[in-house]
């Protein structure tokens, strides 16, 4: 990812020659960890929760000591725990048998994991969740592919070709990115209704096939590609289309991956659009379907609700882990004006 260039704090992970105080801290941490481990087998579940957190704490102390660096680890771990506790809880609750009430934290680890909750949700008799999944896949893939094609062409033109009015067009894209928001919702809805597109795939796909943000992001990338490449290709007699498809597109693969990932996340989790553009259950996407799921089960069936949430999240996580290394660079470019 990113190489840190700033001078780092002193002290080191696993370094032993700290101050005496720090050695004492480390030793205490190690002791706590060992004691927690020894007591584990005899403890009742609520005490185990305490032991686990105490042990983790001790382990962290033993590893990091009390330097500034340790303080950084402390803060990072604390924040990571706060952000990830709900997710961990989600995974554990989703493995409880359906319809069990919210388990107290002491009994959060399921006795017998209910693996077939996933099957129960996907093939639920009351809601066509597998259909939601199918719709979401169709819509997301169509939007990502079409949007990458359309916006990369626009970005190519806005970054590497010169023509009258280019700046005006560019600023219209930027302006719409900042201000379009809620003001376009009603007119777009009315337009789709007049076209008779409500409750069809067209309504879910067409409004998303271009995005000012993607145009902007790809343009920023394309500005970084050396312009000598176009010149060379042009001297060899290549047309604009050839340069776009043979030079810029292949060189800009990381750019496409980043823009594609952003679009994937945005479309997969879009809530407002699918909610107002569709009304039959068969045309819902996962995100909207899941909110029906939430409303119909209310707070009475947390395990199945959490399973459903996992079904939505899993593809996002998989895609994220694949494109992660391009992603950081992409976001950075998005901020350069």
């Amino acid at each position, binding site marked *: 990812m990113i190489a840190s260039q*700033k001078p780092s704090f002193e002290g080191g992970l696993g370094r032993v020659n700290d101050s005496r105080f720090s050695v004492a801290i480390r030793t205490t941490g190690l002791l706590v960890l060992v004691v927690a481990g020894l007591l584990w087998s005899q403890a009742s579940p609520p005490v185990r929760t305490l032991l686990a957190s105490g042990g983790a704490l001790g382990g962290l102390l033993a590893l990091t000591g009390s330097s500034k660096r340790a303080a950084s680890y402390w803060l990072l771990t604390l*924040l990571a725990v706060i952000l990830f506790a709900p997710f961990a809880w989600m995974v554990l609750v989703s493995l409880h048998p359906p319809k069990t009430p919210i388990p107290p934290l002491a009994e959060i680890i399921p006795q017998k994991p209910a693996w077939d909750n996933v099957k129960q949700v996907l093939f639920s008799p009351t809601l066509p969740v597998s259909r939601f999944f199918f719709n979401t896949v169709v819509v997301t893939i169509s939007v990502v592919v079409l949007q990458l094609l359309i916006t990369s062409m626009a970005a190519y033109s806005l970054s590497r070709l010169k023509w009258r009015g280019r700046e005006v067009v560019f600023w219209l894209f930027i302006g719409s990115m900042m201000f379009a928001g*809620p003001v376009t919702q009603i007119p777009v809805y009315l337009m789709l209704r007049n076209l008779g597109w409500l409750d069809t795939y067209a309504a879910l796909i067409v409004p998303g096939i271009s995005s000012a943000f993607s145009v902007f992001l790809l343009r920023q990338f394309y500005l970084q590609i050396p312009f000598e490449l176009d010149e060379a290709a042009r001297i060899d007699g290549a047309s604009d289309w050839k340069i776009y498809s043979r030079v810029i597109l292949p060189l800009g693969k990381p750019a496409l991956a980043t823009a594609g990932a952003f679009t994937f996340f945005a479309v997969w989790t879009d*809530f407002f659009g699918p909610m107002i553009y569709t009304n039959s259950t068969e045309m819902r996407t996962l995100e909207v379907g899941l909110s029906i799921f939430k409303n119909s089960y209310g707070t009475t069936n947390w395990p199945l609700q959490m399973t459903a949430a996992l079904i939505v999240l899993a593809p996002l*996580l998989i895609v994220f882990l694949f494109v992660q290394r391009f992603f950081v660079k992409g976001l950075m470019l998005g901020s350069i004006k």
Partner: protein
Amino acid sequence: MSSTATRRSRFGPLFVAPAFIHLLVFALVPIAYAGYLSLFKLHLIRGQMHFVGLTNYGYTFGDASFWNAMWNSARYALMSVPLGMALGLGVALLVNQKLKGVTIFRTIFYIPSIASGIALSMLWIYVFLPKTGMINTALGWVGITNETDFLANVHWAMLALVVMTALNGVGPKMILFLAGLLNVPPELYEAAQIDGASRPRQFWRITLPMLAPTTFFVMVTSTIAAMQVFTPVYLMTKGGPEDTTDVVGYHIYQESWVRFNTGLAAAQSFILLAVIAAIAVVQFRLQKNQLKGYSTA
């Protein structure tokens, strides 16, 4: 930002045409059309249009519930924007150090911001539950018995939304600040160290001023996003309790898709657009003055 190496080309507009037509049809024309609609009384389902001039605007300006929503959005933005920025900068500083496993933390902090709104809402509804919820359970461990239903409490509901969205949205802001930090020339720190400047002093005198463009970018984009917030409100509080979380985005949605006063909703969305544009202009002005102050440094 025009590059000298680009070539004049007749085909330039052709390449941009599909995206531009889409922009016209789905953004520019709708904005104009919303302005036109705002001059009519229009029922979303029945559909007849009556020209009413500026009546919708007049009505909105006198409508206490709309201004309550505007105030709620302002409260939300005033809390979530500074909190989100402070968190983003703080985390960026933490993960900008040479620490083992720091990329894992970067990944962890980014993940909630790609998660689906509905999944996050379901999780955080649980976090905020009165008896069994995560916060009250944790408070119970340290001996505090608390059964506040955060999302149904007039004092807590807005704060709960702010905390949840600021925490989960930390990822993109972290990355933007990280990019800003990497653009600070290391020589500045070396020079400061030779001059004997302390670390806090280096932070205030070098890091923060050098980050000004990033801070500005994050501030403008997150203010705009905050003024338009909708999904977490819709999924977690429905504007309640007692309209304390009825933000403008949710209010306009209700006006148009629940009460079917589409013309009125169009007028309100136009007022929101004007307010957002005004905030952005003010922020641009402030930024100019601020940069002037630093240009000599």
